[in-house]
Structure formats: C-alpha cells, structure tokens
C-alpha cells in the first residue's frame, strides 16, 4: 500500500464540555486515501464525516479533542505537528473546498484579490502577476468573463459561480496534493451540482489530484468516485470501491442509504 497518501488510523475524538466531561463522537475511524483517486466519505448529517475532514487540516472546533489514533499524511502524523509545520502543509499540500463558498470568501475583497492574495502567500511574486494567475484560474473553471468577474465581490457571485471560484482557489491556485471537498454541491441547483462535480472530476483526473469528497449525496458519488467510505454515528461502517458499495453493499446502513437515495430499487 505504498500509494496511500493519507490514512486515518483508529481515530477517536470527543467534544469537551465546559465542565470537562467528554462526549465521544468519533469511534476508531479508519480509512485511507489512495494517491490519484477520488474517495467519497458518505453518511448522514452528524455522522462525523466533516469533523474527520476538518481534523485532517487541524481546523476542527476548539472543543473537539482527540482521544486516540492518528492521521498520517505522507508518513507524518498531522495531529502532532506544530503550528509552523501545519501552516506549511495547509493550502500548499492539502487544501479544502468549503460547503458554502460565498461564506468562505471575504466579503470586503474582490474575488480576484482573494485568489491573488492566496497565490502570493504561497508562491510569492508581484501583485500584477498574481492577479493574472487568479484570472487564469477563474477561466479554467469556466467562469465567463474572468477579467470582469475577478473585480467583483463575493456577494455579486451566484452560489455555483462562487463554488467554481472556490475550486479555482483550492485546486488551481493552491496546487495541493490532496484536495478535500466538504459537501461542495450542497445548496446548489441540481443542474449546477452536476456541472460542479464534472469540473471536480476533470480537474482531479487531469492534475492527478487526490481528492476526498465529503457528501451525503450518493448520486454524486456513484458517478464520480473511485472509493467510498460509509460513516454512521461516528463509525466507519463500510469501505470499498464505488462499484462494490453500489452493487453489493455489505452493511445494513449502507443498504438503507442506497435505498433512500433512490438510485437502487429498495
């Protein structure tokens, strides 16, 4: 298994209440992301999928504490890295597409400024060169009139366009090895959803990106992903290739999810 880019091993965690009591929410989570593959982590709201993903980047809520396990990225445990080492990984090696792209952009800067700023933060260079890269990135995610759009503020973008810009930032400006997508299509129109997913798959394939797609939409998973991790109530209940999960689900919860998604006749 030398082609594993990131592995979550026996990862357990809990929320610490103000009085110090722990409420366990993740139980022995195990899964691995293979290099170059798109892996989906599916499960219902509250199953711990987003929490696991946020922990990978070290931006989990402050009240969340790890009780055991580790998250290995290229052989290093991300949970033991110091602030400086983490900063070197964030964005440059692992970046993330947030669920609500418009909220993830700063309302007082133009979209172009934000992409350019991230570019300069990670690659340096002049303001003008960075802005040219930003516009180029917007063009690559099929945003029409990228020069004009770059001068607009996030509130002038539709949800779908904002998500494209977010993907441009996370995938093209940051140029990470691992891209985490936290419900990137939730809250978008169904037609826009499929466009965004196509874009993600296309970028993933052409760049050899390793992607981790967090979603509760099995329809999205069936079309795009190579491997699937099913989570429920803080546990991984089933892992396998997309084909195996969809044709021969082993766990009752997986079957329930499939039935609920209307992809497979119940």
């Amino acid at each position, binding site marked *: 298994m030398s082609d594993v880019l990131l592995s979550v091993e026996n990862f357990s965690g809990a929320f610490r209440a103000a009085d110090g009591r722990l409420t366990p929410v993740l139980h022995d989570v195990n899964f691995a992301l293979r290099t170059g593959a798109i892996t989906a982590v599916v499960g219902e709201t509250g199953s711990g999928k987003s929490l696991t993903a946020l922990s990978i980047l070290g931006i989990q809520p402050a009240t969340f504490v790890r009780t055991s396990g580790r998250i290995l990225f290229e052989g290093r445990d991300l949970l033991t890295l110091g602030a400086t080492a983490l900063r070197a990984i964030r964005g440059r090696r692992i*970046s993330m597409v947030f669920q609500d792209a418009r909220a993830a952009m700063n309302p007082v800067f133009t979209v172009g400024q934000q992409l350019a700023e991230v570019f300069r933060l990670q690659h340096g260079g002049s303001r003008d060169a960075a802005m040219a890269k930003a516009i*180029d990135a917007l063009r690559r995610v099929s945003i029409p009139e990228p020069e004009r759009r770059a001068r607009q503020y996030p509130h002038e973008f539709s949800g779908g366009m904002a998500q494209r810009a977010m993907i441009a930032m996370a995938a093209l400006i940051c140029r990470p090895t691992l891209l985490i997508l936290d419900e990137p299509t939730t809250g978008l129109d169904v037609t826009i959803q499929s466009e965004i997913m196509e874009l993600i798959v296309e970028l993933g394939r052409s760049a050899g*990106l390793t992607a981790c797609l967090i979603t509760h939409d099995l329809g999205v998973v069936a079309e795009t992903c190579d491997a699937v991790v099913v989570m429920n109530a803080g546990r991984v209940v089933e892992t396998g290739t997309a084909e195996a999960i969809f044709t021969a689900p082993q766990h009752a919860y997986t079957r329930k999810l499939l039935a609920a998604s209307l992809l497979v006749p119940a």
Partner: protein
Amino acid sequence: MSAPHILESVAGHDATADTPTAPPSPAVQVAVPTRRRAPLSWSMRIGLAVLVFYCAVALLSLVWTPFDPLSPGVGEGYMPPSREFLLGTDRLGSDILSRIMAGARYDLGITLVAVTIALVVGTILGTIAGYYGGTVDIVISRCVEVFQAFPGLLFAMLVVKAVGPGVLNIILVMSFIGIPDYLRLSRAEIRSRRNWPYAEAARMVGNRSWQVAFRHLLPNSAGPLLAFTSINAAFVALVTASLGFLGLGLDPNTPEWGSMIARGQDGVMTGEWWLSFFPGLAILGMTGAFYLLGDALSDLTDPRRRR
C-alpha cells in the same frame, strides 16, 4: 509521492500560460482598473466640505488673520459685529474672528491627533484581545477598563489637573479616554467573526494568525470602526472645549473655542451675545461635520451597500 502537476501553468512557473480554449485577452495583462465609485452622498459631501474648510482655516491662521489673535486692544472692548470686526471684539478688545481662526488649530488639531492615537492603539489591542481570547484578552481588557471607571470629562479634568496644562497632555488624556471604546468595539467585531467560514478559509490556506486577524477580519470591521471614530471625534472636540470652558488644560489666553465661550458667558446676559455665540457655532459646525462624515463613511466601506 506527490502527483505530477499538469496544471502547472496556472499556479506555477510554466511558460504555457495561455490555455488553448481561451483567446488571448489583453485585459489579463492590464492591471485591474480602479473600481467604479458610487457618487458621494450629500451628507458625505457636506461633512467633508466643512472639515476641509476648518482645516484650511487652521492652516491659514498660521500665516494670516485679520488681526493678531493674541493681542488685546486691537479694537475697543465689546464691539458688536461690524465691517471692521466681522464677528465683533471681546472684553479685552481682541478680534473674535481672528481668535476663532487661530482656535481651529487647537480644537481641530487636538481632536484629530487624539482620535487617531485612540483608533490605532485601541483597534490593535482590541483585535489581539478579540482574536486570541483567553488570558491575553483578560489582561488587555481589564487593564484598559481601569480608564473607563471614571466618566470621560471627570477623568480628563483629574488628569489634566494632575499632570498640568499643555496641548500634548490634553491629546494624551483624550486618546486614553477613547482607547477602551475602540478596544471594546474592535474586540467584539473580531470575536464575532473569528470562526466564520472565511476566517477558517484564510487559516486553511496557510495564513499566520496575525494575518487572519488584521488582514482578513479587521477590514470587515472598517465600517463600524470609522462610524464610531467620527462620533468619538465629535465627543473629543466637545470635551476639549469643555476643558477650555472650565479653564483647565490650556493657558487661559489661548484662543481655544471653549475658553472663548467661558470668557464671553457674562456678556450673554447683558446682550453681548457674539462673544460666546461664534465660538459655539464653530464647535457646532465641527462636531456636526464629524457626525455627517461618520454616517456616510460606514456606508462607503461596505461593498454590499455600494452601488
């Protein structure tokens, strides 16, 4: 280990910068043009115009006033407004117009410098306290709250009485009075935003914590801070004049508006209204302009409220 980057040309240093699908666009090379500006609102224009006028008068008074503002007896005492003395003369026969012009240097100057110091220091401390929280927050907040234990004017009177008169002392006292307000405002602003998705996003792409706090979060608070700054400026102008009125802070002969009102207050009863009226009008105009400006500034700094 890491995957090859075919998308090199976007983020990297590859020469193949032009995508095959996109026609070469000249706009890419051009620096981003300045954004279209909304026309300034009327309150903004009036506020700005008045303040520019005050600044101009303050500067002009350095080189020219109708009469020497400091010398008594350029006319007779208690002369009403006339062609020679446009705003009349005071008890000692000094020209009131000249003294008001010279007074702009003191009142406007003290206000602007004190407010700037309070804004900068208070906002920096507030942003640090709000973003980092915990012990840092407690130490900063408690230290600064000491200054809030006294009402502003009382505190200013006590300190000025203790450290002695002088422009510098008044400026320092005024900024100390303002710092806690700026601190509390910016602290609350930053606190409410530090866990918003765009703050997370800023951390996620590898920003340092001070960059997130000062470069990503603080600009979002520019509107409330600027609006408060102008209201605070009006307050500082009033307290400065109040100190002068009470005979504290500056040499009594200084042509400061507050002390001019104090000098003329006896005349109000006996009909020599111009002694206090015109300095009062000067204070009113300045504080009013600050209020108008603040209102308009808070609109202008929010992109969603720009048209």
